[in-house]
């Protein structure tokens, strides 16, 4: 089946352009790109009304709570949320209960995911068994079963020898390892970033230096092993020089950041609002601005939602006891568009970090506005204003820090392999 999407502002993150044009989708791929004019190809035509058409978002690090905590999020609810949020590929985290650390479990999840979710789901697997940092998982079998990357998520592999072996083995198979950079001793028990705000609230803080220390250790390990490595989230200015140097030295390293660290700062926690408790904790405004700049110039490669569903019970607790994490699949795009509206990023740059770079890093052919690329596309209006109501989210969990906030930008339609998986209902 073919569709012809005409009169759209085509966002091309590879060329860095946004121009009016049309896209012919056939057989799940982008068959033809036509710039300007209103060509007639004699097929079913969808007039996009001059709205933006961009490669769908590839979101690395989505937590779907299957198995273990399906009441927080299932593949069906996450997939529906992703489609509505413009995320056409969810790269899921293995920090499930139990951890996704064996090929049998991974294959089972893939089958469930593909049956239940309307978008692409690519699973990651744990780097060490049980995410305990003692023994590497069956990286080879897991790759055969479809694991696209290996990560222990927010568990840092403390033992450098274990990490070194896992990295070395991963390198031999060409596997991508995703690390959470924190010096574990310094960050133990922390609920906030150390500084005036943490002290005023009496919350245990972690110095931002813990991120730099974690990164520097891992960089040394990459230099030793030659592994392919991606940092899940860089959130502090102090970590950036080490990242820059590692890239300049030619190490195979890339880095991401989360939408929450990019658009919020530590003061948003205000009066112990646990929906703003994320891991690592929100940072200072200076850090946030440094991360925006690093993203703009390309030092930080990817931007993701770090979607982490938590139910009301695990958030309605004293701040230190409350669970970390925020849902983000449906708010990633409107929150990221804040940076476009503020003039910090342009749209092609935004989709470079949301779609192109994560796809490239995972070796996927999507994320591009190019002939032959998969027709994973989103049509959106970057300007339409709305006030976010968390109860209107499609995720089972409603723990968003953006509740009640004014946002701009809505997804009008989402296509996965040319199939319409979401269309906004007229309000």
């Amino acid at each position: 089946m073919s569709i012809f999407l005409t009169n759209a502002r085509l966002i091309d993150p590879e060329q860095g352009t946004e121009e009016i044009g049309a896209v012919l989708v056939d057989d799940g791929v982008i068959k033809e790109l036509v710039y300007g004019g209103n060509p007639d190809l004699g097929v079913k035509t969808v007039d996009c009304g001059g709205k933006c058409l961009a490669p769908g978002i590839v979101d690395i690090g989505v937590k779907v709570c299957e198995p273990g905590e399906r009441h927080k999020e299932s593949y069906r609810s996450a997939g529906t949320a992703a489609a509505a949020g413009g995320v056409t590929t969810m790269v899921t985290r293995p920090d499930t209960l139990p951890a996704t650390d064996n090929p049998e479990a991974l294959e089972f999840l893939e089958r469930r995911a593909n049956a239940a979710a309307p978008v692409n789901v690519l699973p990651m697997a744990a780097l060490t068994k049980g995410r305990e940092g003692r023994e590497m998982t069956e990286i080879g079998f897991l790759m055969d079963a479809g694991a696209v990357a290996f990560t222990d998520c927010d568990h840092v592999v403390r033992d450098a020898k274990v990490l070194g072996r896992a990295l070395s083995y991963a390198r031999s198979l060409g596997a991508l390892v995703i690390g959470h950079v924190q010096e574990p001793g310094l960050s133990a028990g922390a609920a906030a970033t150390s500084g005036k705000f943490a002290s005023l609230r009496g919350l245990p803080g972690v110095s931002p230096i813990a991120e730099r220390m974690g990164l520097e250790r891992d960089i040394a390990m990459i230099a030793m092993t030659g592994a392919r490595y991606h940092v899940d989230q860089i959130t502090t200015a102090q970590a950036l020089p080490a990242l820059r140097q590692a890239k300049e030295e030619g190490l195979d390293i890339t880095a991401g950041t989360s939408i929450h660290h990019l658009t919020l700062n530590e003061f948003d926690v205000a009066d112990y609002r646990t929906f703003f408790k994320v891991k690592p904790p929100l940072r200072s405004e200076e850090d946030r601005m440094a991360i925006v700049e690093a993203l703009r110039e390309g030092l930080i490669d990817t931007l993701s939602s770090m979607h982490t569903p938590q139910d009301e019970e695990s958030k309605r607790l004293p701040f230190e006891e409350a669970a970390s994490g925020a849902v983000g699949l449906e708010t990633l795009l409107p929150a990221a568009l804040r940076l476009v509206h503020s003039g910090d990023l342009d749209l092609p740059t935004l989709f470079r970090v949301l779609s192109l770079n994560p796809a490239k890093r995972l070796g996927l052919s999507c994320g591009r506005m190019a002939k032959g690329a998969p027709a994973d596309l989103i049509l959106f209006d970057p300007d339409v204003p709305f006030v976010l109501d968390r109860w209107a989210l499609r995720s089972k969990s409603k723990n968003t820090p953006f509740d009640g906030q004014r946002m701009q930008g809505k997804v009008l339609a989402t296509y996965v392999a040319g199939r319409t998986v979401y269309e906004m209902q007229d309000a």
Partner: protein
Amino acid sequence: MAFSHSHLLGIEPLSPDDINAILDLAEQYVKLNRREVKHGDALAGLTQINMFFENSTRTQASFEIAGKRLGADVMNMAMQASSIKKGETLIDTAMTLNAMHPDLLVVRHPQSGAVNLLAQKVKCAVLNAGDGRHEHPTQALLDALTIRRAKGRLHRLNIAICGDIAHSRVARSNILLLGKMENRVRLVGPSTLMPSGIKEFGVEVYESMHEGLKDVDVVMMLRLQRERMDGGFIPSEREYYHRFGLDAEKLSHAKPDAIVMHPGPMNRGVEIDGEIADDINRSVIQDQVEMGVAVRMAAMDLLARNLRARPKEVQA
């Protein structure tokens, strides 16, 4: 300006006028408390529940006496032994209590912010009797009243707060209160016991008692919170006492009429020399306990007035 708050969760939201309102009313209760018949009726008919999730003898007794002297029906709940141990969440506990229609809830909790959370969920007036490392507002208020009575004013004084600042909610509330009242606050202690970002609080930080105590009007000692430390903050108690414990020699650097305060309970020989603690010419530690009752009476009285003034929910 009338005191308009519905809870007393910390010093942070209070204005200097609010603070003066509490202290002025507390002065009246000091007089009442020194009479033979110590009864008022400001809280008559109201139910006060003291919920202590953390052990306390002094603060709990002080709140209990304060409530009883003003005619409230006071109930103590030792939460450590109760349903919290059975897995009930703080919110559920709050909802259960709500159904019993208390008017004043006095809460101490080991987690910072827990009292704020409770206050959002209950309908009565909540008083923070200490939450984690966050705030202990009635302690700062009783300290302020003690200073005001001893020094004749509560502004433009040099005040040194010494010792374990990092783990102390008393220190945080005092820094905020004394700053709002326009005093110069110095913090003295080892760098390992200073909270991060402390210089942004508008205080001067010293790592030597000699320099820190030089010419101060008030020396406020803090308890070394051994129960909150999991090792490695100080090398040993004897070295701590040698460098930071208050003795006559260190006190000699302060003004000759400087007063010595301690929120209690004291670790004699760790942060303070026993003789100084007992020196009636310098130590106002007993006055602090006395002012504690008066300040708590005043705070509960003011909150109760606002409670009574609030429009009642219509009940079927």
